[in-house]
């Protein structure tokens, strides 16, 4: 009880976020490198990340992802433009931002000569967390990331997967409202990666932590992100949910459908569908019909098949996965 009161007092002293709507906002954020600023790493980046969402930030190597993250936590000053994290300015209020956020950078190193507990204790001291709260939080965090058994083990003996999970624990030591994760699953096995994704999702769901995630794993981004931004050569190409990104291509390239029909032969069904307005192409694949349409014509096809006495047992859109979407977007732009 006593500890709870003290914890609340500490929370009251903590700097609170200034905004309610967006956790992260940037306006024409730009950064160049080189003696004459000839290498433009980020160009006029405009982003708005809502509170409580898992935001995927993807792009090829050298796209400007890490530079953007560095600017957002105040490790780099932008050349032009501005940005806010939890309402704090990314140039003038860097310490306030770091009080509010946690980050797992890539590469991330820890003090190998210290145990997991000693490492976390050191980071916790940087936030002036009271000793009794600190020790409890360290134990809880290591429990959360599945490292409770290794609390007194030196980090030097940790596997890559354990180090990544420990990295997540250190990013959470201050109970951040925004979490920056740079390649959180790189270098770890599929099982470890799956475990890490579950952890991130759980954190987002249970604590409402906003997650800003950069990753090369499209599968990962597709699985856990609510919205995605694709960046290339420092420029933002697209932003939106996966469905919204798919819509871009639906409008441009049409939709592929797969159908299975009963009580009608495939040839008969193909004839009927071909005559439906909007159908571009049609082919029979084994027991399935694969068609390409300019627009959403589900209702029209369903009506026509029903009228001819057939039943549709399967009617699916051949949706593009993020990998394909990403490659198409990068190629196009």
């Amino acid at each position, binding site marked *: 009880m006593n500890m709870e009161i003290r914890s609340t007092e500490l929370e009251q002293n903590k700097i609170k976020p200034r905004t309610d709507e967006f956790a992260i906002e940037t306006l024409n954020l730009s950064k160049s490198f080189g003696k004459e600023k000839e290498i433009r790493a980020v160009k006029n980046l405009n982003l708005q990340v809502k509170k409580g969402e898992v935001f995927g930030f993807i792009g090829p190597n050298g796209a400007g992802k*890490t530079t953007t993250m560095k600017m957002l*936590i105040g490790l780099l000053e932008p050349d032009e433009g501005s940005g806010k994290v939890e309402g704090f300015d990314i140039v003038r209020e860097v310490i306030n931002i*770091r009080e509010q956020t946690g980050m797992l950078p890539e*590469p*991330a190193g820890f003090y190998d000569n210290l145990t997991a507990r000693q490492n976390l204790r050191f*980071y916790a001291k940087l936030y002036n967390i009271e000793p009794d709260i600190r020790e409890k939080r360290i134990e809880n965090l290591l429990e959360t990331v599945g490292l409770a058994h290794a609390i007194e083990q030196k980090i030097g003996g940790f596997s890559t997967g354990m180090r990544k999970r420990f990295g997540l624990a250190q990013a959470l030591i201050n109970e951040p409202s925004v979490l920056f994760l*740079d390649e959180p699953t790189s270098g770890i096995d599929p099982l470890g990666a799956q475990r890490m994704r579950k952890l991130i999702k759980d954190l987002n769901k249970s604590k409402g932590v906003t997650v800003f995630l950069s990753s090369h794993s499209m599968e990962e981004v597709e699985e856990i992100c609510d919205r995605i931004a694709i960046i290339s050569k420092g420029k933002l190409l697209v932003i939106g949910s996966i469905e919204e990104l798919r819509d871009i291509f639906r409008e441009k390239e049409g939709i592929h459908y797969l159908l299975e029909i009963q009580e009608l032969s495939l040839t008969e069904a193909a004839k009927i569908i071909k005559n439906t307005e909007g159908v571009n192409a049609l082919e029979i694949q084994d027991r399935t019909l694969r068609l390409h349409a300019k627009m959403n014509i589900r209702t029209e096809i369903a009506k026509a098949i029903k009228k001819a006495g057939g039943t549709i047992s399967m009617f699916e859109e051949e949706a593009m996965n993020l990998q394909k979407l990403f490659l198409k977007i990068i190629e196009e732009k």
Partner: protein
Amino acid sequence: METDRNVFVIAQKEFADNLWSPRFIVLILAFIVIVFSISWHSGIGSGQAISRGYLDLAQIVSLFLPFIGITLGFDAICKEREAGSLNVLLTHPIYRDNIIAGKTLGAMLTLALVIFISIFTVLGSMLIESGAKFPLLRLNRLLIFAILTYLYLSIFLALGILGSIVTKNAIKSLIYNIASWLILCVVFGMLITTTASIITGHKPLDLDDNERFLELNADFQKLSPSHHYAMAVSGRPSLSWLGVSSERPAVQGIFDTEHTLGQWWNELWINVLILILTPLFLIIMAFVTFLRQDISMDMG
């Protein structure tokens, strides 16, 4: 300010890391053994056991102890950079100058402990061996000796930290620091003798009409920190390998009890001032270099 408190958090960690690092323990033990042996021999059959012991110790300190300073500083920053822990540290609410200040403070505290252990080991060994009674009046001289030694070693500590900032890895930093030590403490005498000889055209072994050569040599000698330390402690210029010097102050260093501390100060204050200013200058250089460096480039 809240973030300034983090200087002490980092200093505390550095101090603990240093104390438990095997290389530090090995170095301090080796140093204590050397100092103990020297002081033991210095005390035999001498009424001036304590001062003689310290004069020998001063020579050992000026030559070998810079290693302790170098050991404490040479990988302060580059080790963290290599391991990627600097990346993580910078994501927490801490300014860059807090990091360098914390690291310097932690190393300086460790150095103070080294001096404390060393001085009392030597003092104890000399008293036990010679049976000499340690006069209380000499305690202040001992304290000044400890401070001078601390300042001298701080120069190499600051050099080590600077090396760790400007180099990419610990091995390179160690090589640069060892090279600096060799030049400043071991072969400096030979270097300046050769330089003075080239400039004046006077052969070092020719003792006739060598005033200009000796004058120039004495001037060049002042470029080495070990000279200022040796002057302040023993009143003798640090004559490293093949070095010569004509400088002979009236006060024979801090343990010259025939002169008062006031006389010692009047005679040798410039050497003391240089011992104070040099580490300060190097620490400021280290700060400026670290703050100007784009360390975030190490990230990703």
